[in-house]
């Protein structure tokens, strides 16, 4: 009796187990097929290129003497972005879709960010091989123990603005006195504190600092006097919105724009970060070198072909409208180019300024980004210099001295 009962019990359990397995297998196969459908372009293209690989590499060899002689195999590598796919990351998507990574024998997976994804943390935990991050935030993580190194300072200048209405009388940070100043918080606010400090204003009493959403509604509703905005995103959102009084889109004349970079308080933003401990490993260092070189090639391509790069980004699943995407591409190009010392090479003065503000501009709680200066190893130009030399050999312009941005007309809603 007991034995029979036990064997039945085992049967029930094993049946249940099989059922659960089958169900989970079903659901996982469902979702994976869904995923392939959703990321059609991203998945299909490399597969096609792989098939034709031998011919392509031969061609590449003829055209580009710097490229390696055929790849024995592609090294997989992943890049963690700060946010969803958008033109801010165009250079990497271009390098992937145009085969620059493949020419350098890398199979790159680009990991999109999310609300709670902190790229430098993902990198430090080993969830990605490389990550993009703003310098001050990454330095804060570094001070808290994340072993990460800035191996390419892709954005040479800050893209943070403070935008006010043209009739507000706010024309420079000195005019912030007594006004409601929107800021994003979460480590995006230190340029504001540095600007206030420079003007001798006390952030606690001389201005009213307001936590701002990641949209421009509060400014348009005149709930705040000046809003924080990125040149390549939120500022464009303003110019895509319809002025209810005229029925037309707002224009640049409707706003006063304060560019923090002009007031000497800009902080360095998007840079490629690598795992410090792994850089001692020759294979990883080699991978980092190839990754940086190919990424730069992507950025150079996007400088010369902004329209095509905007389309590449959209094809990779960006939800942004075409004119907004192109605007972002163009503004991001302005942050990368010109790169007087070569693309990705750290401007020591900008680094020092970023570190200085990170150390000496406390926020409302009295906290600074970092408490002690980062060591010299926090960034290296080694990879960027080699990449610049290689790309120059290939006949590419790596400084973009003659770079001139295009004119982008924004449509309603960025369409």
């Amino acid at each position, binding site marked *: 009796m007991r034995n029979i*009962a036990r064997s039945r019990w085992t049967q029930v359990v094993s049946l249940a187990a099989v059922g659960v397995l089958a169900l989970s297998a079903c659901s996982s196969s469902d979702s994976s097929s869904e995923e392939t459908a959703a990321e059609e372009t991203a998945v299909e293209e490399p597969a096609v290129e792989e098939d034709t690989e031998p011919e392509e590499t031969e061609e590449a060899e003829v055209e580009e003497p710097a490229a390696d002689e055929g790849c024995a195999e592609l090294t997989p590598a992943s890049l963690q972005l700060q946010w*969803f796919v958008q033109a801010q990351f165009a250079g990497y998507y271009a390098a992937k879709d145009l085969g620059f990574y493949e020419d350098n024998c890398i199979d790159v997976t680009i990991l999109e960010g999310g609300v709670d994804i902190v790229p430098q943390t993902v990198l430090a935990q080993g969830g990605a091989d490389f990550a993009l991050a703003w310098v001050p935030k990454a330095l804060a993580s570094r001070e808290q123990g994340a072993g990460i190194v800035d191996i390419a300072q892709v954005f040479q200048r800050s893209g943070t603005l403070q935008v006010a209405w043209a009739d507000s009388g706010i024309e420079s940070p000195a005019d912030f006195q007594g006004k409601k100043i929107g800021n994003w918080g979460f480590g995006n606010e230190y340029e504001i504190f540095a600007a206030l400090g420079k003007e001798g204003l006390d952030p606690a009493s001389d201005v009213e600092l307001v936590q701002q959403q990641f949209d421009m509604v509060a400014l348009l509703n005149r709930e705040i006097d000046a809003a924080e905005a990125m040149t390549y995103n939120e500022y464009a959102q303003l110019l895509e919105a319809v002025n209810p009084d005229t029925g037309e889109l707002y224009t640049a004349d409707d706003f006063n724009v304060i560019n923090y970079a002009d007031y000497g308080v800009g902080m360095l933003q998007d840079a490629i970060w690598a795992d410090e401990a792994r850089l001692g490993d020759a294979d990883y260092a080699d991978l980092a070198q190839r990754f940086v070189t190919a990424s730069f090639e992507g950025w150079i391509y996007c400088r010369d072909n902004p329209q095509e790069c905007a389309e590449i980004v959209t094809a990779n699943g960006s939800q942004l409208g075409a004119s907004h995407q192109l605007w972002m591409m163009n503004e991001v190009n302005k942050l990368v180019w010109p790169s007087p010392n070569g693309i990705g090479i750290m401007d020591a003065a900008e680094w020092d300024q970023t570190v200085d503000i990170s150390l000496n501009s406390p926020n409302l709680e009295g906290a600074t980004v970092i408490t002690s200066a980062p060591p010299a190893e926090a960034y290296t130009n080694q990879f960027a210099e080699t990449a610049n030399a290689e790309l120059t050999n290939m006949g590419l312009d790596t400084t973009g001295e003659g770079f001139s941005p295009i004119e982008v007309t924004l449509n309603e809603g960025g369409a």
Partner: protein
Amino acid sequence: MTNTAIADPQTSADGASVGAARSRTFARRARNGGISLLWALAGVGLVIVMWELVKALGNVIPLPLNTSDMTMPHVWTMFAAMGEPEVRGSENTVLDAVIAATFRSLLLAFGGFLIGVAVGLLLAVIMQRFLFAERGLLPFVIASQTVPLIALAPLIVGIGNQIEIGPIKWTTTYSVMFIAAYLAFFPLSVGALRGLQAPTPTSLELMRSYAATPNQTVRKLRFPSSIPYIVPALKVSAAASVVGTVVAEISTGVRGGIGRLLIEYARQITSQPAKVYVAVFGAIALGLVVAALVTALDVYLTRNLPKEKSA
């Protein structure tokens, strides 16, 4: 012969009356269903009217909330936004995108729900069976729900990214399902445990007098008597799996689902304030579909139980 001749009309009359009774029941149910549908629609209509009233009122007197078209778009603007192309030149409308995203989130939520239910039931059975397991596991089960999801989500994605078993590579899709399951298992394990412990001592003694093994007691007594506890727990679990899916999608930016769409559209609020509401409708629809599915399951599971109230 005569017997059957007599009996036949009787049976057919019986059959007819049963059939008539059935169709009457059906008609009553349909009418009840129609009426409750009307009430539901009336509720939706009321919300729409209230929304527009508040907006209209905001134009006349200052209200403590902003009623501009940017923060509170007109209901008809929201409906118009459904038909707009998602991005310029795309054949997909916003509504198409929202429906596709809702369906994908539904799949993920359902996957998470199934895993959560399986794990929850298993834990409940183990905890009921072994006292030491209940003493040892229950605190962890409860503690598991006190961890904030937004702290957990990046962690799961971070750890998951490194998992690779043979050809199976952990993707963020699995992370979303894991998070949904993580929320879904709790109500079920606690509810089922209570249900399994529900039989009265008299019933248990009866089973013992039959020399029933513990396994038989579980199958024949404990499990049937736990159904009234499991059904409401399933409802809570289903809701939790939806919440878990959407929050996980938002938090980790997983592409394709309604959570990601909410964020994408929310960022376009400056120029297209109505668009995000279409995604909100999608999220609501997701919740309603899951609730309907669980109700259907409820009807099936409780078909043999005495009805407390007539349908």
